[in-house]
């Protein structure tokens, strides 16, 4: 192969290094007006009155909008359409928008925000899930399970109590994973225009133009065909630009009303209010094991702080329990999850969506289990690692699994056997593993259409244009498309022109989330390119009078593989085909395979294939200050095939970086203002300075190794890389801290303060640990009981209405991300 597997300059690199990549806020149009949003200063209140007359009269103001102008509810998941672009009568977190000003200048719009008078009636603020469980009224939303509980899930795969009875040892541990946020360097921005015929176009920093398209059509009551969404290259996404956002809907509405372009660019503080970041999750793991480490059963409970809106939260809830079974063999598994609403910015999907928090708990608990059983943690994992083509207890079908190889590589590369429990006091190593989806098996809204489509246009000049809804968020989705098409057609990636992220030009791709682009858009591109090659080959074979099987496409030529000098240029080949068949264009599409998980809730977690990762982290802990330094990280990732190894390595190292930030410092913390003020619940750090993230000085050396056994389900065998490698970092740091100073930090982030507290406990001969000690009572619903495959289960719950193998479209089946 000439393109695939070769480290190369990405197709959009030149634009990026010359500052020519056009991000949403770089767009300037004639007569463009500017929008600013008035946001609630209160975490929970009723809106009694909004008077915008003074703002409307302010010189330079074109329009003031409030909730009544955009009353239709929307939301990313059909089961939780609970947002309004501007709050009509209820604000649910500090930063919830209540009005919008559109003015000739941004400063004028900002100034006029101060002229809008809003009368609020304060409501009780709910600051965390325990408070939400104890405070059923006032309700933050009038839907959901009951009180302030948004979603409860209870699933049991086999009799988990029997699993514990069969065990030699049963371990119970509670963990807490603090919330954190994406912090993309680009602030969200959007520009909307109405064209002369009344159609709408919006450019926006969104990861999911198709879902934004749907939300706009719903809220604006427009025909989808009259709306065009163009996802501008995102200046970082990480999941934070995956929801349809209020500001996008507001500028669209304003552009339609004003008949002029309207732009908004959020401030950094407002980006913190958009959030949709990592859910804070309290977890309880009960795990039974045999003396040899074999797991006999696991019961996981999660209590999830959802913030003020649904967002992807129902899917997030399922994800906190979905992937435990995909790494290690768990014969009996019970999962109970509960997401509550709180008066904080809504949580949603951040890199690793919902699976990161329980992965932390599971990997730290395994470290404790290994120690108790006197088994090396790497050996323990090798004994229980899942194998290729297994079907898990919760009916997820695995494809190629190279977890064991990942473990062996990091053990070797890091000199694990020479270091573990052998380094001097204050220095330690920790190991952890993970698995992640390569694309969600179901779309956000249930349908039978493809998840991704690619159209390729061949022109007689030899030009190849690729059209796809896939969205470039920095990960290299354009390069994935160009690489695959170039390889199939024997071209260079720079010969390919790309038109992506545009709902008018390209076939639908569901967006850059759930690590789905490489497998879904990639397979669609592969199919379209192969169809194009077949048409061209037919015409060239005729001309050369050889069987078409003998043709080769390489070096921008189409030639006889038996006599390479006999052939035509690629341009000539297209001309022959066009003369023979007419204008040449091909389509490709991709739909994931059907999942055997037929039970209710089985829609979250299935994936065409899963990636695997193992990591070893070395730490130095100063026992006098608790300060943690990370000198080096070794990571191995089961990628299947690295389409462009340069970009794959970048995704691995970027994941390691973000994981290390979560492990050591990043946290979305809130505090209450003093009672004599408003007692409001506000961000502790709504700024980049105070929300700590690793700088170039904090980043250790990373040694990355890629395991490449092609997966039959991926294009050229490729699996995901954008999210999976983040997951093992946090638990590996926690396990390394234990190896270094003998204290367990069962909480993320792992800060010097927590280490000092745990060291003090150790010194006082108490449990050398920092972390939560209890899991509050939740009224769990009766578990859906699904017998695992090895107990004769067919994927249905025995105590639920059996589902047909081809489920009908219905709202409960649409959860995904």
């Amino acid at each position, binding site marked *: 192969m000439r393109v695939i597997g070769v480290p190369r300059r990405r197709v959009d690199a030149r634009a990026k*290094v*010359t500052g020519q990549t056009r991000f949403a806020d770089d767009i300037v149009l004639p007569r463009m007006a500017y929008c600013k949003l008035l946001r609630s200063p209160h975490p929970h209140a009723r809106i009694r009155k909004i008077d915008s007359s003074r703002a409307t009269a302010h010189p330079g103001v074109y329009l003031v909008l409030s909730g009544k102008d955009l009353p239709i509810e929307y939301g990313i998941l059909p089961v939780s359409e609970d947002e309004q672009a501007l709050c009509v009568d209820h604000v649910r977190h500090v930063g919830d928008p209540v009005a919008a000003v559109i003015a000739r200048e941004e400063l004028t719009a900002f100034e006029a925000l101060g002229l809008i008078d809003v009368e609020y009636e304060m409501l009780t603020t709910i600051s965390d899930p325990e408070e939400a469980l104890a405070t059923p009224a006032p309700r933050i939303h009038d839907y959901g399970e009951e009180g302030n509980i948004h979603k409860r899930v209870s699933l049991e795969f086999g009799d988990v109590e029997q699993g514990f009875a069969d065990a030699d040892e049963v371990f119970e541990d509670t963990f807490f994973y603090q919330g954190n946020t*994406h912090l993309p*360097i*680009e602030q969200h921005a959007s520009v909307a225009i109405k064209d002369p015929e009344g159609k709408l176009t919006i450019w926006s920093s969104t990861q999911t133009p198709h879902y934004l398209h749907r939300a706009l059509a719903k809220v604006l009551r427009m025909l989808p065909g009259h709306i065009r969404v163009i996802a501008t290259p995102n200046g970082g996404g*990480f999941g934070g630009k995956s929801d349809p956002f209020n500001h996008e809907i507001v500028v669209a509405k304003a552009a339609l009303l004003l008949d002029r372009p309207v732009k908004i660019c959020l401030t950094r503080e407002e980006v913190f209010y958009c959030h949709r970041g990592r859910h804070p999750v309290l977890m309880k793991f009960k795990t039974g094991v045999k003396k040899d480490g074999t797991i006999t059963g696991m019961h996981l409970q999660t209590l999830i702080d959802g913030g003020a809106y649904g967002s992807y939260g129902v899917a997030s809830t399922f994800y906190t329990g979905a992937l435990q079974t995909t790494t290690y063999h768990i014969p009996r598994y019970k999962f109970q999850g509960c997401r509550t609403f709180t008066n904080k910015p809504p949580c949603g999907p951040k890199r690793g969506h919902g699976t990161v928090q329980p992965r932390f708990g599971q990997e730290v608990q395994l470290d404790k289990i290994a120690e108790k059983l006197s088994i090396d943690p790497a050996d323990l994992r090798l004994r229980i690692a899942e194998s290729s083509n297994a079907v898990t207890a919760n009916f997820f079908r695995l494809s190629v699994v190279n977890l064991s190889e990942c473990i062996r590589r990091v053990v070797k590369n890091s000199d694990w056997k020479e270091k573990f429990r052998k380094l001097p006091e204050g220095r330690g190593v920790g190991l952890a593993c993970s698995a992640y989806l390569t694309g969600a098996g179901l779309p956000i809204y249930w349908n039978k259409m493809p998840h991704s489509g690619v159209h390729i246009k061949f022109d007689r000049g030899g030009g190849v244009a690729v059209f796809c809804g896939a969205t470039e968020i920095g990960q290299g989705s354009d390069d994935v498309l160009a690489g695959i098409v170039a390889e199939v057609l024997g071209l260079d990636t720079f010969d390919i022109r790309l038109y992506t992220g545009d709902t008018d030009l390209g076939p639908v791709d569901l967006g850059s989330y759930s690590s789905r682009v490489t497998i879904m858009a990639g397979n669609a591109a592969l199919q379209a390119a192969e169809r194009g090659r077949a048409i061209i080959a037919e015409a060239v074979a005729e001309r050369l009078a050889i069987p078409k099987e003998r043709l080769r496409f390489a070096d921008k030529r189409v030639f006889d593989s038996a006599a390479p000098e006999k052939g035509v240029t690629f341009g000539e080949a297209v001309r022959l085909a066009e003369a023979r068949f007419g204008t040449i264009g091909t389509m490709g599409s991709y739909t994931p395979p059907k999942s055997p998980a037929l039970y209710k809730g089985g829609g979250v977690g299935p994936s065409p294939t899963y990636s695997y990762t193992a990591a070893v982290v070395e730490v130095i802990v100063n026992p006098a200050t608790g300060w943690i330094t990370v000198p080096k990280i070794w990571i191995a990732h089961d990628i299947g095939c690295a389409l462009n190894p340069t970009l794959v390595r970048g995704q691995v190292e*970027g994941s390691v970086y973000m994981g290390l930030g979560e492990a050591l410092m990043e946290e979305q913390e809130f505090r209450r203002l003093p009672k004599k003020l408003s007692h409001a619940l506000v961000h502790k750090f709504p*700024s980049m300075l105070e929300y700590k993230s690793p*700088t170039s000085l904090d980043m250790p050396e990373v040694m990355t190794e890629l395991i490449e056994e092609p997966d039959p389900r991926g294009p050229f065998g490729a699996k995901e890389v954008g999210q999976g490698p983040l997951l093992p970092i946090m638990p590996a740091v926690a396990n390394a801290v234990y190896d270094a100073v003998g204290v367990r930090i069962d909480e993320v982030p792992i800060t010097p303060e927590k280490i000092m507290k745990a060291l003090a406990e150790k010194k006082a001969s108490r449990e050398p640990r920092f972390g939560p000690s209890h899991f509050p009572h939740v009224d769990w619903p009766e578990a859906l009981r699904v017998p695992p495959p090895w107990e004769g289960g067919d994927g249905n719950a025995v105590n639920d209405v059996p589902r047909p193998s081809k489920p009908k479209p219905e709202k409960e089946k649409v959860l995904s991300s």
Partner: protein
Amino acid sequence: MISITLPTESQKSAHIRLRLNGEETDVSFAPYKTLLEVLREDLGHTGTKHGCELGECGACAVLVEGKPVLSCLLLALECDKKSVLTVEGLGTDGKLHPLQDAFADLGAAQCGYCTPAILVTAKALLDQNPNPSRDQIREALSGNLCRCTGYQQIFEAVEAAIVKIAGERND
């Protein structure tokens, strides 16, 4: 009720002449504007980015008189008669600067949003010290946040550019 009327953007009462990417440039703008705003809004140089406008992220770095500064914290009025270099001025005659070439080849730009500022900051470092160590590169770039790369490929690209620049000098 106090009503404050801020000056508006259309009141372009301030005027400076600067040497922007080697070109004598006159510009009129509202006097409250930062260099970042004048570059992006009044001079159409959108290559320079913003991530916070509070001096926290480093995405707006440009070189003023050869030194990296955060253009979001600098009033444009302070730049009269100064030379300003942005990413648009890094290459010459349609040819990429060796730093740009190395960043493009080695994966140092993922989303590309922090890239323009990192490139000019790295250029300032290499202008001052043609052969910095890895630690000196880390130090020089520590004010530029990148959320995508984990910095490693950025360090490697700067080091590759150092080699290339040294090679060109010896040619």
